[in-house]
């Protein structure tokens, strides 16, 4: 197992260095002088520019700038936001729980619906039910989720008036951020109705973000189930006279779930990319919206930091999934 971990790390470390290089080059590749870009239309005086250049190390040779950058990273210094003057890491950590909460809800919806739907489709292969489920999955998979979010707003917020349009919670409430997860924080606070408000705000964005993972998981579960159901041990279980429920639920599903778990792990990248769009539509104060706002605001140090952090998180999650997979299935370790 340790050898497996080491072999994964041997690939990951150079990749992560490459990611730092991409993040580092990003600011230097921008057309024009980075400082003048950052200063925007206000412009910048020559002395101030020189001073800033020295302060940020832009006057040093490139390779030295890169090593300084790596050194700062090791100290947890990802630069400072030009707009808020706060460290990028602090801003990220303040907003990250909102994205995690949204993503967790989305993946929960996707798994809780996707796996059963895939199992039902596989066990009724070729039937109308199968065709409806797989047709629905293909629609979900082809969905432009930014538009899907707007549609849901028109229907549930506009026509029916059931859910709010944007934000995490109604402005009527003030909830002390303890965990950063609004659902938990509202339960901890004594504000009446705050939890319900948070839930109402969460539901539409979660559905939107869950759409593509749901479709992918349903398709993957179906094909994994179909593969497993042709195996000898499933035939044996059936021949023993076990009920179809037991054969499908216990013998087949348990083995079919292994590739599905990998698929779920791979959805993290999909979720974070989806969060960019979903958070923008619903004004959800997470890292996706933060990133888009920073790009439009030309707050490039934030973009640089976010790029690195998001890629780092995805690599970490993928490593965890790989290791878990190695634990479940010893065959792939070699």
């Amino acid at each position, binding site marked *: 197992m340790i050898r497996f971990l080491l072999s994964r790390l041997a*690939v990951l470390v*150079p*990749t*992560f260095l*490459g*990611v730092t*290089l*991409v993040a580092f080059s*990003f600011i230097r*590749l*921008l*057309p024009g002088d980075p400082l003048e870009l950052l200063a925007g239309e206000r412009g910048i005086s020559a002395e101030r520019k020189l001073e800033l250049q020295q302060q940020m190390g832009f006057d040093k040779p490139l390779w030295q700038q890169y090593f300084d950058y790596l050194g700062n990273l090791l100290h947890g210094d990802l630069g400072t936001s030009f707009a808020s003057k706060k460290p990028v890491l602090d801003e990220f950590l303040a907003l990250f729980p909102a994205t995690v909460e949204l993503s967790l809800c989305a993946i929960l919806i996707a798994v809780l619906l996707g796996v059963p739907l895939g199992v039902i489709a596989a066990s009724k292969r070729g039937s109308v039910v199968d065709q409806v489920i797989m*047709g629905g999955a*293909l*629609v979900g*998979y*082809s*969905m*432009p989720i*930014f*538009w*899907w979010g*707007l*549609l849901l*707003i*028109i229907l549930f*917020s*506009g026509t029916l008036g059931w859910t709010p349009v944007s934000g995490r919670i109604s402005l009527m409430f003030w909830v002390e951020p303890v965990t950063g997860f609004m659902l938990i924080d509202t339960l901890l606070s004594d504000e009446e109705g705050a939890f319900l408000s948070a839930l109402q705000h969460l539901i539409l964005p979660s559905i939107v973000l869950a759409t593509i993972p749901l479709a992918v998981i349903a398709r993957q579960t179906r094909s994994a189930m179909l593969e497993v159901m042709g195996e000898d041990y499933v035939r044996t279980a059936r021949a023993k006279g076990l009920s179809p429920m037991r054969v499908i639920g216990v013998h087949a599903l348990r083995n079919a779930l292994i590739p599905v778990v990998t698929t779920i792990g791979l959805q993290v*990248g*999909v979720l*974070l*990319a989806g969060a*960019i*769009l979903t958070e*923008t539509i619903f004004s959800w104060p997470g890292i996706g919206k933060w*990133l*888009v706002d920073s*790009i*439009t605001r030309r707050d490039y140090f934030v*973009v640089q930091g976010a*790029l690195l952090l*998001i*890629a780092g998180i*995805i*690599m970490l999650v993928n490593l965890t999934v790989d290791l878990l997979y190695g634990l479940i299935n010893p065959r792939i370790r070699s």
Partner: protein
Amino acid sequence: MATATSVKEAASSRAANERSALREFWFYFSQNKGAVVGLALFILLVVVALLAPLLAPHAPDFQYRENFLTPPVWQEGGSSSFLLGTDAVGRDILSRLIYGARYSLFIGCVVVSIALAGGVILGLVAGYCKGWVDALIMRIMDIILAFPSLLLALVLVAVLGPGLLNAMIAIALVFQPHFVRLTRAAVLAEANREYVVAARVAGSGHLRLMVHTILPNCLAPLIVQATLSFSAAILDAAALGFLGMGAQPPTPEWGTMLAEAREFILRAWWVVTLPGVAILITVLAINLFGDGLRDALDPKLKRS
């Protein structure tokens, strides 16, 4: 004389082989009804895009100043000269959607061509050369894959500057690794087969081995990936347009149209709904077609 006839025979038997392969492909493909529907929709879309100037009732960017936010014809207040209504500055939505088909198909073609060409070359080189060249290429691809595709495309567009062309380049770059990986895997699988060894013994050079001997046998997964990337490119370009980083207004690109329509979301459902329907149908049609293509080309799933 004898060699001439045999060459002719070989050519004709090769053509016959190709014909029968095509027939076999169509046999499997046409069993999947969804795939045939997808293909039909896609062909329809291509026709609409090609004939846009003939089909569109109005110019896509002409503003009818008396007709701001006219609802579609079947709704109260609708007008028969604007079948799907008008947008906030009085442009005919149907005409914009028809012209938008051109942009979407163009985006799909350009992105897939760049990603496919680059991916095939890099994948062939990596798989064929092995060693440090392979390691270098694959590590670079790993780095690209470490970012969510939309995020990287967004940042690349920020570097290159917003616009349709830059959005297409960014998306093509982000899609590259999938093609490289597929090509490399296929090349590695084929490189030690007997026919390749035979060609090498017969004196084929590296380039001929790579392009002429190995590549044609790796095409099936690449074709499927190209189809699926086509729809993904349309989706991502629309997403970039929606975020204001893709095609810029007044281009009738569907994602850009959605971005412009956002503020009227609760007042005029048609300006928001219709461009999205166009995106969804296009992407769905191509995905249906791609699924059918995969089933027909993947020998594992053939029921022969």
